[in-house]
């Protein structure tokens, strides 16, 4: 049936163009709102009680929404210095866990990023501990939270006694992994030692499901490795000097006298650099955040273990 519809093609064209245009505009709007948008509500509504009422009973859903926003904002940006609003992290997590006290990942993720010093984290270990303790209160069966608590006490607050206590209490929770007890014992004996730290990072990597946390743990583990290796390499360089009476020209010299078995490489596979002043540096410091040794002079900062 032939009809007289002259409007069909223009309308179809308009529909397509406008729909496409609206998507483009959407992306433009997102870019403009980007930093501010997702965090807006946190900025203005700080009361979890009010939020709970506003959510009309769907507080769990609202918690998920807040959580997703947190991950989007902090999870993807945390390693870029910029002007990340870390001061909002604690209120955000506090509200999220008020809305849904059983959102374990919020306690775990949140506390780790809360406690780490800037620019990687908010640098608020006390608040982090507070958060985890709340998590433990609401979820006494989750022994992993004790692990997180112990971690915070150990690394960021350097309170080895408290760390040991946390691991101890955690090991007593039915269903806890046996290494919690070992951790407690190790803490009592070897607190502050690099190997203990590495153990904790490894365990964190193995037991966490959040990709951001896993990556964080890997980087810390690698950093500890680098620190150790750099120190050891510098020792070997000194040994060479003592033995041979002069500085080595390259790694190959050390290999020849049996001080090294091969060219030493960092965890990324890149060879370490033997500097003329007998120090060792890494080739690519940007790929190894958290290292304290092996940095070029302008990068040296007084920092964490």
């Amino acid at each position, binding site marked *: *049936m*032939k*009809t*007289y*519809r002259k409007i069909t093609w223009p309308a179809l064209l308009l529909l397509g163009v406008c729909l496409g245009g609206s998507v483009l505009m959407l992306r433009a709007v997102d870019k403009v709102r980007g930093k501010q948008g997702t965090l807006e509500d946190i900025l203005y509504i700080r009361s979890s009680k009010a939020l709970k009422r506003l959510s009309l009973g769907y507080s769990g859903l609202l918690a998920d929404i807040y959580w997703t926003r947190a991950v989007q904002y902090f999870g993807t940006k945390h390693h870029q210095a910029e002007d990340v609003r870390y001061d909002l992290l604690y209120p955000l997590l506090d509200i999220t866990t008020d809305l849904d006290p059983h959102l374990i990942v919020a306690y775990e993720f949140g506390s780790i990023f809360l406690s780490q010093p800037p620019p990687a984290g908010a640098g608020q270990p006390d608040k982090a501990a507070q958060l985890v303790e709340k998590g433990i209160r609401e979820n006494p069966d989750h022994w992993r939270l004790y692990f997180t608590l112990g971690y915070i006490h150990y690394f960021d607050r350097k309170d080895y006694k408290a760390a040991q206590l946390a691991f101890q209490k955690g090991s007593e929770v039915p269903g806890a992994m046996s290494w919690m007890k070992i951790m407690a014992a190790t803490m009592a004996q070897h607190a502050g030692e690099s190997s203990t730290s590495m153990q904790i990072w490894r365990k964190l990597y193995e037991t966490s499901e959040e990709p951001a946390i896993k990556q964080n743990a890997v980087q810390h583990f690698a950093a500890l490795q680098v620190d150790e290796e750099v120190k050891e390499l510098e020792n070997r360089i000194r040994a060479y000097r003592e033995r041979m009476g002069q500085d080595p020209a390259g790694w190959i010299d050390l290999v020849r006298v049996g001080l090294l078995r091969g060219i030493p490489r960092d965890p990324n596979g890149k060879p370490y650099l033997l500097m003329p002043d007998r120090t060792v540096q890494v080739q690519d410091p940007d790929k190894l955040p958290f290292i304290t040794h092996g940095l070029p002079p302008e990068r040296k900062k007084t920092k964490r273990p």
Partner: protein
Amino acid sequence: MPAIEILGITKSYTVGFFRNKLRTALQPLNLTVAEGETFGFLGPNGAGKTTTLKILMGIVFPTSGEARILGHHFHDPEIKKKVGFLPEQPYFYDYLSAPELLDYYAQLSGVAKEQRRKRIPEMLARVGLPDVGKMQLRKFSKGMLQRVGIAQAIIHDPKIVFLDEPMSGLDPIGRREIRELILGLKQEGRTVFFSTHILSDAEALCDRVGVIHKGVLRGIGVVEDLKSQNADKSEIVWHGAHALNAVKEMLEQTHVTGETVRAVVQTTNLDAVLEKLRRERARLLSVTPLHGTLEDYFVAHTSEKETVQR
């Protein structure tokens, strides 16, 4: 140029739960109406009259076929400036007053502001509603609404006016008044196409009529001719279908319902037919002379059984 040309318009609907059955509302319809003619579109309820009008107005789309109005394609919006339509049992925006409605509709039909201002009171007076003022349409009676309907159909001075059952639901006085209005339209030289199932109105007003039944146009012609088709005829009704064969050649039209046969026969053949029927032991029920009314023509073409023979 004919005012209205309907060229093979059909309309079918898919019905049934799986949309697999076809129900045909209109078989291919071919019809032409000349300018200035008053054409009556007759048929029982559900015959397809309203469907035809809706298709012409572009409210419903035909399954196939097309139509022309004053030489233009029937979907051409510009031609609608010359067309007026009154639907069956019309309903207008009840929050408007009659002058507001007419003003709105006239504006939509392209009437200039000055003309609107002049015509609206004239129109209201003409249809017999001079004093309705600001009263909202929701307070109008059925008869008043019908008149507003006619007013909106002609406010833009169209050449063709389509009316769907314009008398429906009116009391005798209302009907008389509408009839007068239609006569007025006719006298103004407009083409009037109206559908109805009230034969006396058609007889009184129309130049030509078409009879439609179950989606098929069954007869069309000048009123006088149709009426005289059945003059000098008689109608015989008898019981005993077996006798039909004996008298078939002498009959003009036959309708069989079970054992009962109703037939039309030339009065000159009447005695011969009756004699044959008696011999066949058919039981005679009635013999009626036909006086050539439109009703007879109508009934002849719209019976249920459809075994119409000529």
